[in-house]
């Protein structure tokens, strides 16, 4: 978390610990902070404050977008998603399918992206919502969501377009109109904000059924006492991120590119899963033939380098990445892949250490 974010949040845990839904003075101050944050956030996204729904994070936002759209729609029951979407989108979609709704999962190409033609072919008069992520969390592949939104709305204006932009806000500048989406998910902890604070952008005129019913907060779309400190932190983090974004992109992007070059030249048969173009500046997903990622991650950790691989199962073992499998890798190839993620705190020294350590471990393990 950015220290300034923590500082901005702190008062709301102590002196200003009011419930933003109350009537009295303490509450009003909390409410003030909440709504002021909402305005600032809306302005950054090019949206109006009423279009911002605060949630507990990306997963809840994704769930609300898909389920909320389907549950509210009596005419349309279909969901269309790409095969490389985040589990929050895929699992929500599969759940809806188990309830009897139509589900279409569109395959992705070798770069992890869906083709707009494939998307249009899948959208029908029964499609309630389409979900296409802006930046893939495992590979960093950037998709042309504006083109998707435009094509879908033209082909079938009754279908909503949702984009999981959780990995995107930190590295891409966009407004909701530029993307043309009806729904958009963001979460604070991906750009130096707090965990547990996120939002769903809901375009005016788009109606969702709430998943959390109760006191009617967020204009009835998401009931529950607000995490005022979290929202204040989210707004602060978004502002700082927007201000530093181009520097982040160029600096972190160069570090990532250098890391990639070093690894590629030192390990000739290394395969880069992250696409070569239209990619985030901070992801690097690579496959090292002959080395099991489980072993490599353990050894990297012992050497003080943190890397990851897909998601973990309930007991903590690494699972085979569904994203890589959707891209055409075999289970074995997926198990040879690791993900290195850079952040706003990553230094050159860390890149050099990671690179040297990885190269020497690969030499030892093969």
């Amino acid at each position, binding site marked *: 978390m950015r220290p300034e974010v923590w500082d901005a949040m702190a008062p709301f845990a102590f002196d200003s610990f009011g419930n933003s839904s109350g009537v009295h003075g303490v509450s009003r101050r909390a409410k003030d902070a909440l709504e002021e944050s909402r305005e600032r956030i809306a302005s950054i996204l090019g949206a109006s404050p009423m279009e911002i729904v605060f949630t507990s994070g990306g997963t809840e936002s994704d769930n609300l977008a898909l389920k909320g759209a389907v549950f509210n729609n009596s005419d349309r029951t279909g969901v269309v998603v790409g095969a490389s979407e985040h589990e929050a989108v895929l699992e929500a979609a599969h759940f809806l399918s188990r309830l009897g709704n139509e589900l279409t999962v569109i395959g992705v190409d070798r770069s992890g992206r869906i083709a707009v033609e494939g998307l249009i072919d899948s959208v029908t008069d029964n499609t309630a919502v389409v979900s296409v992520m802006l930046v893939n969390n495992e590979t960093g592949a950037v998709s042309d969501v504006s083109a998707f939104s435009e094509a879908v709305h033209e082909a079938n204006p009754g279908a909503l377009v949702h984009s999981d932009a959780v990995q995107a806000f930190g590295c891409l500048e966009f407004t909701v109109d530029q993307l043309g989406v009806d729904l958009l998910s963001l979460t604070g902890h991906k750009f130096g904000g707090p965990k547990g604070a996120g939002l769903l952008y809901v375009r005016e005129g788009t109606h969702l059924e709430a998943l959390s019913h109760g006191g009617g907060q967020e204009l009835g779309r998401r009931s529950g006492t607000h995490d005022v400190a979290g929202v204040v932190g989210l707004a602060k983090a978004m502002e700082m991120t927007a201000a530093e974004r181009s520097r982040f992109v160029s600096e972190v992007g160069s570090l990532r590119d250098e890391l990639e070059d070093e690894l590629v030249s030192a390990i000739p048969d290394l395969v880069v899963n992250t696409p070569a173009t239209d990619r985030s500046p901070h992801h690097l997903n690579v496959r090292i033939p002959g080395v099991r990622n*489980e*072993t490599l991650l*353990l050894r990297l*950790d012992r050497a003080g380098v943190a890397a990851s691989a897909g998601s973990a*199962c309930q*007991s*903590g*073992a690494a699972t085979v990445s569904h994203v890589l499998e959707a891209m055409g890798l075999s289970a074995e190839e997926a198990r040879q892949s690791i993900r290195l993620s850079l952040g706003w705190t990553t230094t050159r020294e860390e890149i050099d250490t990671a690179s040297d350590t990885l190269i020497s471990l690969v030499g030892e393990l093969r």
Partner: protein
Amino acid sequence: MRALVAMSGGVDSSVAAALMRDEGHEVVGVTLKLWSGPNGEAPTAGCCTVSDAEDARRVAAQLQIPYYVLDYSEEFKGGVVDKFVNDYASGRTPNPCIECNRTVKFDQLLSRLDDFDCEVLVTGHHARSVREDGKWRLLRGADGAKDQSYVLSMLTQTELERTRFPVGDLTKSQVRSVAGGMGLRTANKPESMDICFVGQRDYRGFLADHAPDAFRAGELVDSEGNHLGDHEGIAGFTIGQRRGLGVALGEPRFVIRIEQGTSTVVVGERHELEIEGVDLEQVTWTLGVEHSGDMMAQYRAHGDPVEARLEGDHLSFAERQRAIAPGQTVAFYEGDTVLGGALISATTA
């Protein structure tokens, strides 16, 4: 030494990790993910469940040692679960915990020690390994009632060189007391008695779900071949079984033989369970020295060894023994020392 400790989430492996750490070794704790249910979900009952992994993780955090979960589910499926199913389908009685030791823990995991940059594998088994006269000797654990040397009887010098059993010198209550003294959350955790992939249900239910072909209907006959009834599959029977035969003959009847070829289950009286000896396969010698002649043989995990004589691959018992099934393991002892082990391929009346 750098030690990889296999932590099941039980008190024995928790204390094994603690003892190694306190002796000054660099310890890395791992839990093996062995089995997921049919939909990929982790077991919530039986051994090695999600909550067991959580217990192991917490103990590792308490001991301040690094901790990882390793996925051995493919190896486990091939080496243990499939063999379990095939054994029952062919009328044998498997011991999957022994197969897990043989193929997963002390073979596949052990062979990756170098990759993990560790020198020894440590488990919480109640057994002792001692270096004497240039060799590693495997001995029964200090606690006779908890001794697990039987399930380690397939180990040879190659494995013993790179394995340590720190709790073997302690009794179970001493282990719990050490754990309690350290405030480990597993100090009073009850032992799991279930096969990890079967859980709390009957193994027949597991077989019915995972290997329906193992159930091929056939006849129940007596030792003269007289038809007594029908059954739904030999996989549901084991030598010595008395219950669930589906025949009522007044006196107790036991499964004395299972014939895979004809899918016939032969049922007889108690005395018909007695056998003279067994034929062996996959014989291993702990010290690298082949033995023959008189020795003590133990054919149950917790049973007293009996006097026996080994000639070639046939083991004769000094006194006739009852209810021994092909597929079981026999371990050879000289006093408390394990000489070797083998699988029973057939019994001889």
